[in-house]
């Protein structure tokens, strides 16, 4: 297995973890909050709210802006 494959496998594992947690949260009674609940909680305070919105803005800037 090359380092490139190992690196990509790491990303796939993280995405799989996110999907599994979201499915457990929304399709079962396991006490796991959904990603939406997590965001709502993080955005309850002003600084958390602005922090999450800026993280979103940063993604756009990083991938598209000079």
């Amino acid at each position, binding site marked *: 297995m090359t380092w490139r494959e190992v690196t990509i496998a790491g990303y796939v594992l993280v995405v799989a973890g996110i999907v599994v947690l979201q499915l457990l949260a929304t399709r079962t009674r396991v006490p796991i909050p959904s990603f939406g609940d997590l965001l709502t909680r993080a955005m309850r305070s002003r600084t958390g709210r602005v922090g999450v919105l800026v993280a*979103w803005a940063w993604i756009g800037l990083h991938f*598209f802006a000079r």
Partner: protein
Amino acid sequence: MAALAGLRAPVVWILLAIAFFTSISGKPVDGVLMLIVAVGLAWDAGRRALRQPEAGEAAVPARAAARPRGRPRPVVIALAVAGVVYAVVVGSFSRYSWPATAGIIGLSTGVVLIGWHRPVRSRPGGGRLPVAGTLAWIVVLVAGCLWELASLYLQPSLTTDSYAHPTISTLTDPLLATSPGRMLVLFAWVAFGWYLVER
């Protein structure tokens, strides 16, 4: 004075760190924008802390009354069409061009300003989150960030891609090199931004 008092908010330090690392990675515009938001947030948080020292970290004021109502269908359609038009127009420009940069900065600034004070629609606040479940999310998300950071530092330099240790940016380059790919990703980005503004 207010800005110094606001430095107690951890988010401000995270934004300052992002501004620094983004700048040294060859993206000065991103760095300056992050710096502006960090200073603005520190000033805002400090001003509120000085006004109500006992209040600590203030919760976002709730918008109007209790139950969230669905948005009227014509408004939803108009927003979706606006999102598609934005994605098509901005996505038609090449990445890192000035028109694309202006489009991204314009929308980002608007969304952050609209969402700064409170959600645009009323939402139930939600109770306490289960600790173990929340920790599981934190572990997965932090692991993702560390994996990306490790790939970034295993590159020959911060501004040179590595085939062996690709970052998410490197892996998405083929998709974002095409106009349809850019339009698709931009539409998803816009939709997620609107979702966040309403949280």
